[in-house]
């Protein structure tokens, strides 16, 4: 199972790296930010599922409450949100390769490993920070007086802004309705009433 998962993750990574797919996804700001980047992070999360059983004890101990890992996630994602970084990835294949390696390994893997260690309140807090910040960044894209990325047009930038706002609203609504009805992801159904349903599970299990 683990080997298949690893193979699937590696295969997907290679598919995303194929020039036609890579160029298509990077030709549009929305596809770049809202499709390619999240997909690369998800591949890292898949790798984390495989690595979880072999994780060294010292690393698990050092990742106290999952905080160092989540800090790495925040730093990594923040860097690749910078317009200049996105520009670099579009114009320089080496920078793009660094993005293709860093997003799965320095963001996805820590996310997959550390999220489970984080207490329920911490997970909920991360969500509660992530959602409005996504909306605020979308708002700033709409309000920016000039192009933020040299390689994307103003209309693409505006569409990216609306897309980020839409994702923030969708995530917020999903989070709210899941908590309202007490929905728990199947991976976290150890004891939904005791564990506190979605808020506690919050995409990652107990």
């Amino acid at each position: 199972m683990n080997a298949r998962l690893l193979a699937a993750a590696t295969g997907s990574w290679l598919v995303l790296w194929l020039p036609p797919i890579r160029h298509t996804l990077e030709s549009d700001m929305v596809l770049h930010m809202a499709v390619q980047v999240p997909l690369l992070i998800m591949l890292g999360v898949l790798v984390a599922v495989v690595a979880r059983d072999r994780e060294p004890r010292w690393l698990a101990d050092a990742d106290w409450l999952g905080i160092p890992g989540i800090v790495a996630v925040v730093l990594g994602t923040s860097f690749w949100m910078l317009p200049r970084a996105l520009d670099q990835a579009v114009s320089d294949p080496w920078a793009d390769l660094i993005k293709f390696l860093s997003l799965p390994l320095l963001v996805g893997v820590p996310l997959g490993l550390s999220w489970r260690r984080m207490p329920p309140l911490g997970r909920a807090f991360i969500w509660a920070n992530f959602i409005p910040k996504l909306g605020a960044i979308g708002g700033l894209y709409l309000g920016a007086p000039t192009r933020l990325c040299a390689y994307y047009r103003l209309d693409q930038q505006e569409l990216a802004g609306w897309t980020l706002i839409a994702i923030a609203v969708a995530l917020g609504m999903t989070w709210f309705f899941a908590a309202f009805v007490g929905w728990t992801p199947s991976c976290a159904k150890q004891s939904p009433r005791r564990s506190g349903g979605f808020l506690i599970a919050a995409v990652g299990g107990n």
Partner: protein
Amino acid sequence: MTIAATAGRTAINPRAAVLAYLAVSGIVLLLMMLLGLTMRLAQAQWIDVSPDFFYVVMTMHGAGMVGIAGLCSAAVMWHFVRRHVPVSTAVFLTNLVFFLIGAVLILGAGFIGGFGAAWTFLFPLPAHSGGLWSVNAAAAYLVGLIFIGVGFLLLHLDIARGILSVYGGLGAALGVKQAFGLAHGEEGPPPAVTASTMALIANILGILVGAAVLIISLVNLYVPSFTFNALAAKNLIYYFGHTFINVTIYMAVIAVYEILPIYAHRAWKTNWAFYLAWVLSTVFVLTVYTHHLLMDFAMPTWTLVAGQVISWLSGLPVLLVTAFGTLTVVYRSGLRWNPAAALVFLGVAGWAIGVIPAIADGTIAVNSVMHNTQWVPGHFHTYLLLGMVAMVLGFMTYLTNPQSRYGVAWLGYWLYLLGGVVFVLAFLSAGSASVPRRYAVHVAQWLPYDRIGSIGAACAIAGVLILIVRFFVGMRTAASAQDPSG
């Protein structure tokens, strides 16, 4: 469903933590009331306050009162909800620490930096000071709000965690099944849980929206070329601001549900109507904010019509079931009135009475005339000063109530009540005479309202001072005491 909430989980005494909240609340409340009195005295021309400083005081009074209303009503909510669900005392205290950090930043922004853009920080005013305050002062104010928001976010998320761990979903904790007849009303969650669920739903959503607009405002301060649609920003700010201040009443009303039955020796009975009222008010509180934008002609008409209709309906469901429940608990119960019971009873009355001028102001035809008059501070001071604050003072008195000595507390009660009534009536009368609000300098024809209002405010402050001093005197014994309910 009652559980020993946090027994064995923390070394911090939860009761002492609640008292710490109330102690901070008492001091800040008094200071903010004094700022309010300063404004009324300045308008009455009994003291000299420069217009620049008037707006600093107005901003600090507004922000401070909204913050402290949230803090003390959160103490009421947490004290009672922890009887039913597991919550963390550490998180509760973290909120207090965040609040204090935020308060220092806000006070520094005002009294050192001169920030005076009103507590609503309407975009893009913080960045356009006309030389009265610096960018850093405005940023300190906004960052202070973020600190306070983060603290409340943590607190509500922790209560949500506790509620979900017992009830499975927020809908179940709100009593949705009971509201729609799918389960017996008597089997529903306790009122404290239902009210807390409503509060956390509204406040978490409100804080998320508020965080977004605060970040955008901060960026605009330092990079003014990054602009944002001002009307959209106003919508976001009032979604957050209205929800936050409105929810303080719904948190404080838990004191009524819990304290009155103790003194009346009658349980607060819940039924389908009670839960339906809370479900409806949850929806209304999240959608009513557009009544703050009735004068914004650029808003789509349907949003303003919705704002008017929902304003008429918004407070009524919970108010009606609470007022009716209060009367049925008290009527022929043989209740021996004491200041704690009288204060929470007064809180329901103040809330009910204050809603009437609020509904009037929520009507577009009236709002177009009254919105910028003192009618508005008149109505919100009625249900906040004589409603929410009365409930909190009742809670403070209940926690530190040595049953044999009521004399001083009664004096405080009557001073507070009579002063408060005079104070709000002065505002409402001035509003009906079209005296504008938020004016630092008043013309001679307006002075009688200002002077009567100042006297009322001074009396109310004296009453609150007595009640709070009495609270501090009783704090030491209260920290180790059991609840009067046992």
